[in-house]
């Protein structure tokens, strides 16, 4: 937990599509809680369930996958494969007594500054509720 007692969220973004959306949000000074941290990867379908589990283990309250959706430059199967990662991880989470709602995924395009901020702030609120 961060100094202000807020839950922490780990975001997996993608280098070409969803990370630019987060950058744009910053550029436009669209604020979101500072306890949201990003790790950027090439494609959302390369995220390993064990990374997500590690994040929960180490104290993150939520993990958000900012997926490429149909804009993924590696092909159409990306969305389906990312969902598969989520499904697999949900199983692992259940085994550990974590709530499936602690892992979220949404397709974010490179200029979706507003939607991504909405998703993240909404997710934070949910986690805060869960915590209290």
């Amino acid at each position, binding site marked *: 937990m961060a100094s202000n007692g807020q839950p922490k969220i780990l975001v997996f973004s993608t280098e070409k599509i969803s990370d630019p959306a987060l950058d744009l949000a910053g550029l436009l000074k669209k604020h979101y809680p500072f306890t949201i941290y990003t790790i950027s990867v090439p494609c959302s379908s390369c995220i390993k369930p064990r990374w997500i589990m590690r994040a929960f283990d180490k104290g993150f309250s939520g993990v958000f996958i900012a997926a490429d959706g149909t804009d993924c430059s590696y092909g159409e199967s990306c969305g389906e494969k990312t969902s598969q990662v989520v499904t697999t991880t949900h199983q692992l989470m259940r085994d550990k007594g974590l709530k499936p709602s602690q892992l979220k995924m949404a397709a974010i395009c490179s200029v*979706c500054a507003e939607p991504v901020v909405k998703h993240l702030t909404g997710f934070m609120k949910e986690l805060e509720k869960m915590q209290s």
Partner: protein
Amino acid sequence: MEATNNDSMNRSNAGTTDYDVLVIGAGIAGEESALKLADMGFKVLLIEKEPSIGGKMILLSKVFPTLDCAACITTPKVSETARHPNITILTLAEAESIVKEENNLFSVTFKKHPRYVVENDCTGCQECETVCPMVVKDQFQFNLVARKAIYIPFNIANPRVALIDIENCTLCGACEQKCPSNCIDFTQKEELVNIKVKSVIVATGFKLFDPISIERYGYGRYKNVITSMQMERELAPTRPFNSVLRPSDGKVPDKIAYIFCTGSRDHTVGNPICSQVCCMYSTKQAQLLMGALPMADISLYYINIRAFGKGFNEFYMQAKDMGANYVKGKIGSISEKENGNLILRYEDIVTGKVTEKEHDLVVLSVGLLANHEITKVFKNEKLELDALKYIKQPDLLQSPATTSIKGVFVAGTATSPMDIPDTIMSAGAAASETSGYLNQWS
């Protein structure tokens, strides 16, 4: 199969020349030609008259028929172009004269307009915009909103640096004081640069039809009659407002009409041909609007639907299935009610009757026009135009990228209206033709 930029080969045998190729216009056509030639190892100078590269595509919302986000698919290409070691980009640059010399080199003089901001030092923080007192219409949002006299053209501009629109600047110096990187420079002057190149690609794109000349549609008089390009901006993820709004009162529209073939297939405006993309972009916008405003009624008044390309007919059928109301009709005129709503008078072809219908927003599906000013720049040999004022392709069926001047090639909508996939292919053809020409040189 990605190009490897970091150790790109230099195939240039430029010698006394400055560049192997000059590409005029940095829309998707110019970028694609430049990238292909640069990947082959040629040295390319890409000049663009606007402050950002990217052409029209970078300003679009999503693109038919796949509905990918235009920004997502074009900005990687834009940055690849900007980063390529074999490509030099100059924005705010316009060719003044091109003379073909006896040794077959082209002597090119171009004008570099000042930005009044040191391009390499500006961090794009937009602090200057907050203090500039001058508010003017924003041409990159097609006048839907305003900008300052010092401004960054749009969020995903490349280069993403500020410039001063000196005509509207009062020289108050507020930005200069505010700028954290001290990069404002009012002493910059217009420069004339002369270079020599071996070949030229004309990729100057198209102009949009200005519907002000069709008086019966009332564009410019009726606030709620807008162009499709304005609607592109309203639908873009980087849109000026949070939702689709109609201009007169900021209300969310729920009875939207599209008028196809505005400024196309119309001898009275001097443009007899079909613009090739407006049926499909209107269909795209209809789908996006149905997504954004599920309750809205969208009527599209058309003559014929040109849904000819790969996946297009399927895309059109999908729009119909979603509930878009296609009306085969000839528009007579539009009149405005006091509440800003618009009455469309049209002949319904299926019933044969003249009918009236009320809408609260009318979008004109404006056509594409030839942008032929560039021909004036060619001073000795003539760059010929066809009867429609597009760059003439003398060997249309065998070598479509060649022009009336040997060593000058053409790409994209400079030759004819076309969509993005066709533009990319035409640009590839221009790169291929240019490379073949340059190989003969040595």
